[in-house]
Each structure stands twice: as structure tokens, then as C-alpha cells.
């Protein structure tokens, strides 16, 4: 027993600070937020507050504004994930067999990823200017110059929920498609060349080669991409803040709504929104983490 502790002890000791820090700053604080969300603390004042159970949650789900933010989030996530996956996959497919100047294409496609969402939001907020006709600015002006006036639209300021949230998703797609391209490209390059050879020898057409041989090999990467994009989209905040400003009902999602609630110092409600957000993310991520860890321990 003593020997065992001697071998394992130091390792456990190295991890101890991390476990304590995360134990408090992740799990402890989540507990704290849950606790606040169950109280009637609707001011910034501290001190003991009465428990109201799940009232805050019940109220949230009965509130149009919160439901609106959830619907916005749903639309945003669908458009963003689909758009980014499609663009990323197309770019990877175009590059995967190797083209002259591949490095340049790759770098350019990837560079928006290095930029903060605030900086890109500042730029896209300008590009998505809603003015049309003679007053058109940004992208609308570009459409005018290119004689594509019919494409001019009010972006996030008018139209349906889908146009609004797709306008928000567009910059996010611009930023992250390159990343998905890199993931898929690395995936393609990781597939042994013999596999292609074998399929070709067997007389498979290019289409069948991709459909039956290459794409199935990429499905784990696609799953990762889905989780990454999904959880980024659920937490998206900076971009909306920079493009529309925080206080816009049209583009409000839970993370932004939480900030607005906080500005009114409604602690319990803000905490409840943040916990709903956590639960939504957890539904996506927990099975994935469990799966990853299980797979790793089997190796």
C-alpha cells in the first residue's frame, strides 16, 4: 500500500491544484449560480434571500421575450452549423487533391479565425447596413454596383426571424468555415492512399469513391465539428453585441438576454437564464465527453 502511494502520490499531487481550482471555479460556481437562480434575489443587494424554488424558471418559460430568444438561438444555430459545414466541406473538397497555391488558399480561408468576434463584428456591422437604393451602404451598395439590386435587403433589421438570424450567422460562417475546412482537410489527408487505389482498381467512380469510401472515414470529424460549432453557436455573444448592440429584441439570444437582465440587476433571473444555457450546452456536450473519455480509456 505504501509503495502504491509512493508511485501514484506525486502524480495526484500535481493534479491537486487544478482539481481544487476547477472544483471551485467551475463546479462550485455553477452550484452557486443554481442556488441564486432558486432565490428571489431580484436586486444587486447581497445578504440572505428567500428561496422561491423553480419560480424563476417557470416565469422564464412563460415569458415571450425568453421564448423569442430561444427561437432566435435555434434558428441561428441551424443556419450557422449548416452554412459552416457546407462551406468548410466544399473548400476542403476543392483543395484536398492538391492545387497550386494551396497554402495561400488555406491561409486566406483560415485567417478570419484569428480575429476577435468584436473586430469582425465591427466590420460586419458596417457591411450589413440596412439602407437600400441610393442610400445603400456596405453589402447593399456592393450589390448595387454589381447590378444585383434584388439582393439588397434590410439584413437583421427587417424581415422574418430567419433573415434576421441568418444575417447574424453570416459573419460567424465567414469566421469559422476555414476552421472546418482545416479539420476536413486533415481528415482527407489522414486517409491512407491505398484505400483510394483499391476503390479505383475495383472500378469505383469518383462520386462513389467519395460517397462510399472517403466520407464514411470522415464521419468522426464531422461529429467533432458538429459539437464544436454547436456549442460555439449556443454561447455566441460578442458578435451580436458588436453588430446590433446588446439591446435588440430582434437578435436577442439567451446569452445576450442574460446580459440585459444583469444590467437591470436582476440576479436571480440572470442566473436562471445562465443555467438554462448551461443545460442546453450540457445536453450536447456531456454525451460527447463521456464517449471521448470512454473511448480513450479503452485504448
Amino acid at each position, binding site marked *: 500500500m505504501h509503495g502504491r502511494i509512493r508511485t501514484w502520490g*506525486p*502524480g*495526484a499531487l*500535481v*493534479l491537486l491544484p*487544478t482539481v481544487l481550482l*476547477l472544483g471551485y*471555479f*467551475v463546479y462550485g*460556481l*455553477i452550484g452557486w*449560480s443554481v442556488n441564486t437562480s432558486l432565490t428571489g434575489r431580484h436586486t444587486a443587494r*447581497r445578504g440572505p434571500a428567500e428561496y422561491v424554488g423553480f419560480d424563476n424558471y417557470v416565469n422564464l418559460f412563460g415569458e415571450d421575450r425568453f421564448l423569442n430568444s430561444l427561437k432566435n438561438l435555434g434558428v441561428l444555430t441551424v443556419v450557422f452549423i449548416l452554412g459552416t459545414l457546407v462551406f468548410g466541406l*466544399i*473548400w476542403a473538397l*476543392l*483543395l484536398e487533391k492538391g492545387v497550386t497555391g494551396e497554402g495561400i*488558399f*488555406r491561409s*486566406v*480561408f*483560415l485567417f*478570419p479565425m*484569428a480575429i476577435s*468576434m*468584436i*473586430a469582425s463584428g*465591427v*466590420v*460586419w456591422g*458596417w457591411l450589413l447596413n440596412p439602407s437600400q437604393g441610393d442610400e445603400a451602404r*456596405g453589402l447593399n451598395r*456592393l450589390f448595387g454596383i454589381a447590378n444585383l439590386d434584388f439582393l439588397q435587403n434590410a439584413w437583421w433589421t427587417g424581415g422574418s426571424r430567419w433573415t434576421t438570424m441568418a444575417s447574424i450567422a453570416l459573419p460567424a460562417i*465567414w469566421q469559422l468555415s476555414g476552421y472546418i475546412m*482545416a*479539420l476536413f482537410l*486533415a*481528415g482527407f*489527408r489522414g486517409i491512407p*492512399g491505398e484505400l483510394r487505389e483499391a476503390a*479505383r482498381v475495383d472500378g469505383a467512380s*469518383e462520386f462513389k469513391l467519395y460517397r462510399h469510401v472517403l466520407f464514411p472515414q470522415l464521419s*468522426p470529424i464531422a461529429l467533432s465539428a458538429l*459539437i*464544436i460549432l454547436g*456549442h460555439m453557436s449556443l454561447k455566441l*455573444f*460578442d458578435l451580436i453585441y458588436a453588430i446590433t*448592440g446588446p439591446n435588440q429584441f430582434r437578435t436577442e439570444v439567451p446569452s445576450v438576454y*442574460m*446580459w440585459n437582465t444583469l444590467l437591470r440587476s436582476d440576479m436571480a433571473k440572470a*442566473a436562471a*437564464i*445562465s443555467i438554462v444555457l448551461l443545460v442546453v450546452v450540457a445536453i450536447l*456536450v456531456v454525451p460527447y*465527453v463521456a*464517449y*471521448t*473519455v470512454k473511448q480513450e*480509456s479503452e485504448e
Partner: protein
Amino acid sequence: MSATAAAEQPASKALRAKPPRSSIADGSTRLSRTVRYLILLLFLLFVLMPVYVVIITSFKTSADTSAAEQWSLPSTWTLEPWQKAWDILQPYLVRSLSLAVPGAIIASLLGSANGFVLARWRFPGANLVFAFILFGMFIPYQAVMLPLRTTFQTLNITQGVPTLLVAHVIYGIPICTLIFRNYYATVVPNEIIESARVDGAGLVQTYLRIILPVSISGFVVTLIWQFTSIWNDFLFALFLTQQSNGPVTLGLAALSGGQKVDYAASMAGALITSFPTLFVYILLGRWFIGGLMAGALKG
């Protein structure tokens, strides 16, 4: 293969691997190659379009930014917007730099030690600890933000750079640990560790003599990753600091928000803010991709 396993296969290497060559005459004709290049060029223009307007706008006088002239080159080139943005952003840039550099180094060192233990000095229950750390990577920070602010007030840590530094280090540990864990699992053969153990080397000796010397590329990845994500962070900055002591994303948001926006200065500001991460990305791009893949899941 999960995202974490994807990291085990250094992405930069996978991307540099030669694209597969077909010995059989390729189905793709000259025409389809031309089409492929054309499509790629169109995408290139799409990605670079915002860059073009940002650059030209940043050199325009305010008279020049009228709707009709938005996409044309400046009639007179001026550095005034750059001067204005620089004057406003300078103190923010200094704060961001003094935050991102130590933040990246400290989290990387902790991640390296943790990663070593989790990959090569395992103890019973190590997987549980791994899952515990991994989940910390995914949480929406909104769920901890309110109590985090209270905690910092209670601990009496000075608002501004110190608070953000503590937060970024703590919440950066999971991703750094994951990257190093995967890195050590592939780079360092278990036999070397075993034989060092047989020779009586303890954990600290093994780490310093065997692990640290081969850790350079691991550190490059985590340092780039941490630097970029600290530099680009907006959420922590907004929740935990004031405009007077915040980092550069907060400065840029202030410069570009409000009623009367100076577009030329905003664009110059967006560029100034993006230079450090772009510089890191251009200089160390190959590792950046590796870091993105390894750090796949942090958003």
C-alpha cells in the same frame, strides 16, 4: 476518432502530407481543373471582401466615407483615422499584452504538468479526473460569471488586468491540459518513462529531464492558442472589468459603439486590434492549425 484523438495526429503534419496521387489516369480534365480554380478564386474574393473595405475605409477622410464612395479607393489617403484609433486604443493594447503573455505562459506550464501526469504518470481514477477537467472546457462562462465577480470582490483582487489574468489562467487550464495530454501520449513512448522509473527517477526528475526537453512544439501550440483566445476574449472583459481598466476588445467596442460612429477610425481600430493575433497566425500558422484542432472544443 474524436476531436481529442484528432489532436493526437498532429494536424500540421497531416496538412503538409502530400495529397494522394492516382496512378490511374485521373478523371479530372483540364476543364474541370479550371472550374475548380475559378470556384476557389470566387471563395477567395468572398473571404477577402471585408478585408478590402476595412483597409480602404481606414485611410479615408470622414468626407470620403459617403454611401456612394464606400467601395472605391480613398480620393485622398489619410492616416488620421489610424492616429485617432491608436491614441484611443493604446492603453488598452498595453493592458491586453500584459494580460495575454503571462496568461498564456502560466496556463501552459500548468497544462504541461497536468498533461504529463494524465498521459504518462497515471494513477487510479485518472480518467475520472480527466473527464472532470474536460467538462470544464465546455461550460458556457455565463453560468459562472455572476459568482465569479462576487468571488473576486471578496478576494479583493484588483479589477482589471489582475482579475482577468486569474480568470483566463483558471479557465485556460482544461484546454492546455488536453493539448499536452494528447501531445505526450503520442510523442513520448511509455518505455522511456518506464525505464526512467526503473532507474529510480521520480516524477519531478522524469518531467524535467525527459518530458520538458521534448515539449517545445506542445508549448508553441498552447501558447498560440492561449494568447489568441485571451487577446480575443470579450465576455470576461465585459463582466469583470470597466472600460477604464479593460483589455483591447473593450476598447474597440467603445470606439465603434455609441451614436456617432467614426467609421474610418473604427476600421483602423479593428485592424490595429487584429494585428497581434494575425502576426502570431502568419508567423506560426502551421502550429496554429494544430492548436485549433487540438483545442478543437473551446469557444
